[in-house]
């Protein structure tokens, strides 16, 4: 499979009378965008705003961040299964706009973990989104539309906008082209065959938070709770086959579109390693299923992909941690060396507290940081996606978006921590 991502740097995003590019600036006609969003009758109205770096703006109730992308080839579909017609993603040319994003807010969500983005001060300095310009979408449900149904409508609106913005950059020259080519079906020959085969185990999802008992559809538009381990070509992940669920928790669609670990394995493919492929799995609620998954995943890694080493990433949470460890242990037992990701959730104690594995073979651990570190943010002048009275989650005290100063746990700030390994943060014993 060969994927060519054509990246265009966008210097600015502004409201305009027509949607189109001019001199690296993307103009958007809000009226046109709103009309497109409102073709979904589950949405009654949609407030649109642009948030730029330096604006004293706080975006709340954030449920996803999506990079504007569209297929360039005729017949290519965007976010197949989630938005566009079902086709296998990961082949051909995809346009990607750099420096801007679509930020989705859902102020009607009653889930525990919606995120926040500040465009100024400490919050902006820490987050990768602090230096980008965002099209912020804040939709209102039509009467009688249920909570879960509205969530799907919000996601769909975001994907549509992401594609529409990318299409608007049509004639603009490409700034940077990234090619990802990997023929997994054919074993490497010659000099390359001496390189170690490294696979990636991608724990896609955990069902423990399935809101109202319903799973979020994230893989080609399908739910994945209970999915037995299977293979994906890494290009599928980079090209819209996988999107994020309805809450961020250190993982949003933007990050998946630019999957840091997949791109790192690609970067070193052919020089230091052979990228042997990707096994995807899902965390399990039941211990028997957990064991089954671990054995099957390890088998795919060792006997089907023929990997000598595997890197494993997890989603947010404690149960996913247990699951990941079991998969890693099974891989080690099958003769495959592992390196696995963990996250710390306490500021007091030691990094050893979180490595709750009993197997000695799990001795190569990467941590993505202490994700509950409290971060103080200054007063915002304007709130998007909510209002100054919007509650901002804090386990110790009540606070509102418009307060003089707010204190938030790091994992609720979009773009800071990253379960897929894109952040330059590491938790250390002090």
């Amino acid at each position: 499979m060969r994927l060519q991502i054509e990246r265009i740097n966008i210097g600015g995003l502004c409201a305009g009378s027509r949607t189109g590019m001019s001199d690296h600036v993307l103009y958007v006609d809000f009226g046109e965008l709103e009309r497109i969003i409102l073709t979904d009758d589950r949405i009654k109205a949609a407030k649109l705003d642009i948030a730029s770096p330096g604006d004293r703006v706080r975006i709340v109730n954030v449920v996803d961040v999506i990079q504007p992308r569209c297929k360039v080839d005729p017949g290519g579909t965007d976010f197949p299964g989630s938005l566009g017609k079902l086709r296998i993603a990961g082949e051909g040319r995809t346009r990607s706009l750099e420096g801007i994003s679509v930020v989705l807010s859902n102020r009607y969500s009653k889930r525990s973990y919606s995120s926040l983005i500040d465009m100024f001060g400490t919050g902006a300095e820490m987050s990768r989104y602090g230096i980008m310009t965002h099209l912020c979408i804040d939709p209102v449900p039509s009467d009688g539309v249920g909570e879960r149904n509205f969530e799907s409508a919000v996601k769909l609106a975001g994907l549509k906008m992401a594609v529409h913005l990318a299409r608007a950059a049509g004639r603009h020259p490409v700034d940077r082209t990234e090619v990802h080519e990997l023929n997994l079906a054919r074993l490497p020959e010659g000099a390359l065959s001496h390189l170690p085969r490294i696979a990636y185990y991608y724990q896609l999802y955990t069902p423990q938070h399935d809101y109202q008992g319903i799973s979020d559809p994230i893989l080609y538009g399908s739910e994945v709770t209970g999915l037995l381990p299977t293979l994906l070509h890494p290009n599928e992940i980079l090209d819209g086959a996988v999107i994020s669920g309805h809450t961020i928790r250190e993982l949003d669609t933007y990050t998946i579109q630019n999957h840091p670990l997949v791109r790192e394995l690609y970067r070193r493919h052919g020089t230091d390693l052979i990228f042997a492929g990707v096994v995807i799995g899902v965390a399990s609620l039941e211990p028997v299923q957990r064991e089954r998954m671990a054995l099957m995943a390890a088998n795919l890694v060792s006997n089907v992909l023929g990997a000598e080493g595997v890197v494993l990433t997890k989603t947010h949470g404690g149960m996913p941690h247990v699951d990941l460890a079991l998969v890693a242990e099974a891989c080690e037992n099958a003769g495959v060396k592992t390196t696995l990701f963990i996250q710390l959730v306490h500021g007091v104690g030691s990094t050893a507290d979180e490595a709750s594995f009993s197997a000695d073979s799990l001795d190569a651990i990467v941590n993505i940081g202490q994700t509950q570190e409290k971060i103080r943010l200054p007063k915002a002048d304007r709130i998007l996606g909510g209002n100054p009275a919007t509650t901002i989650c804090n386990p110790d005290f009540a606070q509102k978006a418009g307060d003089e100063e707010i204190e938030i746990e790091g994992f609720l700030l979009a773009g800071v921590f990253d379960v897929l390994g894109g952040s330059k943060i590491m938790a250390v014993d002090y």
Partner: protein
Amino acid sequence: MDRKRLRVVHYLNQFFGKEGGEDKAHIPFLIKAGPIGAGMVLQKILGERGDVVATLICGDNYLAQGGEKASREGIELILPCKPDILIAGPAFEAGRYGVACGGICKAAHEKLGIPAVTGMYEENPGVELYRKEVYICKTERSTVKMAESLKLMANLALKLTSKEKEGKLLSGEKIGRPEEDHYFPRGLIKNEIVDKTAAERSVEMLLAKLQERPFQTEAKRPELQPFYPSPPIGRDLSDCEIALISDGGLVPKGNPDRLRSRGNLIWAKYRIETFWPREFPAAALEVSHTGYFPVHVLEDPNRLVPVDILRDLEKEGIIGRLHPFFYSTSGCTTSQARCQEMGEEIAKELWEKKVDGVILTST
């Protein structure tokens, strides 16, 4: 930029404060303007960056034995000095002095909200007592190393009070790792901003592991001490009292004791007769735990806490009786240390109530 000169208060014991020797170990707090004795070395080290505005002196016995009450007296005395930081000692290997320094530093931090730094030799009992609460620089055994020790302490003090935001910690603090800034590990976990992404680090680590090159794991495995199993129930079950505990966050509707759904620190005990009505228990209960979606438990709480089953078994004479209280906590991201404490507290109660056996249910 005009950096403000730090206002430092220096704590010394009776000996280093030049009040006397062992014969004066009982003296209470006194305060003197400016630096005294080793404090003058400290002043020289600080130079333009700070002033030792006062020296707080106390007898070793008075403070080491006086505990928190004594520490508070000392803090009252230095309040008018408006210190930015307290530097105590260093105590080297002097045990009472070390405990005193640790105590006064802890009090300064808690009562005045200012950073506090002291220095001790690793075998000083003050280290284990206070290292989790206070910055203790590692010194040598001998007081001959006074100047070197004060340099380390001053360096740490300046970092702790620095308002500059560069530094490799996500929080913006300037403090370095224990081994870099020469202090005993505080038992804290801090986020550092590093050069490479976790993705880059993981691939590098895996290649090193495969190629049998050395690598540095980013989390060590826990060293757990095995312990002996508790004995089995020795009596006939039909004679026994069985208690139920759960960390799944089951609480009365309204969560009156405010068990937190994440990072919870408390446990509560509920009289089962009122907590769990015989008819429709689900209506009287809720779940405070963000680690799982509680829809199934809310339909039938017996799925998490089998009260009705045990009531049946009691009626049938299979068990003696169900302990009248249910112990509830919420275990989502509660620290290990707090979990252990809660376990001890609950164990004490169960022991006193002569419960024969316990069933603990989790998610």
